[in-house]
């Protein structure tokens, strides 16, 4: 029974990973931009929500409504002034700039808010600890359920945006080939700036939920980046539903690992991530060999 519980809690934890990975899946998987400041942007949003709640006493959900446009504007600015050059010059420039940006954000947060960890949990009342009983001494937290629901809604929304809207088609076209996209009348710069704004807004939602479910400090960003990245890669680049699955695989692996050994939580997560990559490389090889054997062109 304890295993069943660990797996169920792992799925719920995976909901959080999927949520924090939304923006990364969109930027890295679809736009092909690597953003090493992803986790730090989430933490920044967490602090902003916390600061609004602290000053005004309003609900974190309302405060998130105030923070969202700010983070969207930040994403737009980031794309325009830092990431845009990457459209044609490869991944080195965005990797270096976002890595520098991450260090700046972390240390500015430290200067502004100090080393104390913060949490939004006190501001959401019963939601922080209420749970549903699903029988057999297994409980699912209301907040965890809400997190999973929001992750599904956001990933679904992004998938719809990409597949069904003119903006989504433009984003995919620019990702494929910015020059050709511009030939057919797409303004690659503004399309990508809009896409980055959307992506960073989803990061802000992730940061707010991190603040509600746990505590965070100024240097908590890199760990979130790694979890988000693992969820995106396990699920497969470019697929929003894949990211949901990837987050759940990661959460379950971590919880099962923790059940096996006290420090197995992180080890199991990283190990499953690397194993998925290795299997994917090996199966790619196998497919190529089979094709060669059957004499079909690759």
């Amino acid at each position, binding site marked *: 029974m304890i295993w069943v519980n660990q797996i169920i809690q792992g799925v719920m934890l995976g909901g959080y990973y999927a949520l924090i990975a939304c923006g990364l899946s969109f930027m890295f998987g679809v736009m092909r931009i690597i953003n090493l400041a992803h986790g730090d942007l989430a933490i920044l949003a967490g602090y902003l929500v916390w600061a609004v709640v602290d000053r005004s006493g309003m609900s974190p959900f309302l405060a998130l409504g105030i923070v969202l446009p700010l983070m969207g504007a930040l994403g737009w600015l980031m794309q325009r002034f830092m990431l845009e050059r990457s459209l044609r010059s490869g991944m080195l420039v965005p*990797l270096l700039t976002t890595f520098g*940006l991450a260090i700046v954000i972390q240390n500015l947060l430290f200067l502004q808010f100090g080393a104390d960890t913060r949490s939004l949990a006190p501001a959401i009342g019963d939601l922080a600890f209420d749970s549903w009983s699903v029988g057999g001494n297994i409980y699912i937290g209301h907040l965890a359920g809400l997190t999973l629901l929001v992750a599904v809604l956001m990933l679904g929304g992004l998938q719809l945006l990409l597949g069904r809207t003119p903006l989504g088609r433009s984003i995919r076209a620019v990702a494929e080939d910015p020059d050709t996209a511009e030939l057919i009348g797409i303004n690659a710069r503004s399309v990508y700036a809009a896409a980055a704004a959307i992506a960073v807004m989803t990061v802000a939602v992730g940061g707010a939920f991190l603040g509600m479910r746990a505590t965070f400090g100024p240097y908590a960003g890199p760990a979130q980046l*790694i979890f988000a990245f*693992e969820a995106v890669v396990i699920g497969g680049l470019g697929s929003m539903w894949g990211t949901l699955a990837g987050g759940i695989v990661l959460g379950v692996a971590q919880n099962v690992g923790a059940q096996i050994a006290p420090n197995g939580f*992180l080890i199991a997560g*990283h190990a499953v991530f690397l194993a998925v990559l290795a299997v994917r490389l090996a199966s790619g090889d196998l497919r190529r060999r089979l094709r060669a054997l059957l004499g079909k062109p690759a």
Partner: protein
Amino acid sequence: MNGRAGLSIQRWTPLSAASVAVLAVLGVALAFGPLFLGANAVDRLTTLFIYIILAAMWNALAGYGGLVSVGQQAFFGIGAYAAIRLSSFGVPVYLALLLGAVFAGLVALALSSFALRLRGGEFAIGMWVIAELFHLLVNLDRLIQGETGTSLIALNSFAPEARRDYNYWLALASMAALLVLMFSLLRGRLGSSVQAIRDSEDAAASLGVRVLAAKRILFVVAGAGCGLAGTLYLATSISFQPATYFGVQWTAYMIFMALVGGLGTFEGPIIGAVVFFVMESVFGASGVWYLVGLGATAVVFALYLPRGLWGTVEERFGVRLLPVGYRVRQGESAADSPR
């Protein structure tokens, strides 16, 4: 070789031959450093040598091989850990430091078949995950006592003054050996291969460049080099705390030094390491603001001076002090081969 139309390939210029000679003299002079330098200067220079190693290794990977790793701290930490482990088995301590670096190189070799097949961002962050995993696994060793860490106690058998000098010489010799090795590798066939791969992997493969083999050499040398930097750092600080050695800040420093000095130039990372070293000495005491400054400087360089300090000088004046490339000359006008 004298080709058609009076073209000739030039690999050395009088200036570059002179600068190699100056560096050789400087290296020999530095070897006598402990005889006339104060204790603090010897310690600081040892740190500078470690920084130069780190910068040169990251530059070799990213600037020449196109392999942007955010996980080089894996080798830094693994080298130091292996030295502690070997020393605990009774291996003489300075030998353990060297073998720690060899071990880091072996780990890089073992990882290479997997890691080098990851692309771009997957490689960059995949290496970071590998470093995190190594950190967690090293914590499992009882000798290390988790995040509490341990010390390389065997070093205490040397008097502090003698140890300071030995560390200095070891760091200087390691730096010189790694720079000479990298220089000869990059001037040779490997240099042309990896730069062809960096610029277009498919095109390079179609020309018969053995892509994986060429990358592997760089990856293993850089792994061993970062491992050596880790063991040297261990020799100077004696204490080993996993979170310090496996921290991503090491890669941040490497990126900063290579980027500011000039990615893809041989001289750049050496200059970048000196800049970083000076910045740390001057502003390090201001703590968090110093880190904000480092991050902001990296952003500014990546956006507005992507060739770094030395790359910009090279571009403007056409100087090569330590040429790893080829220069095609025709009469008076000299044009650099694309690097």
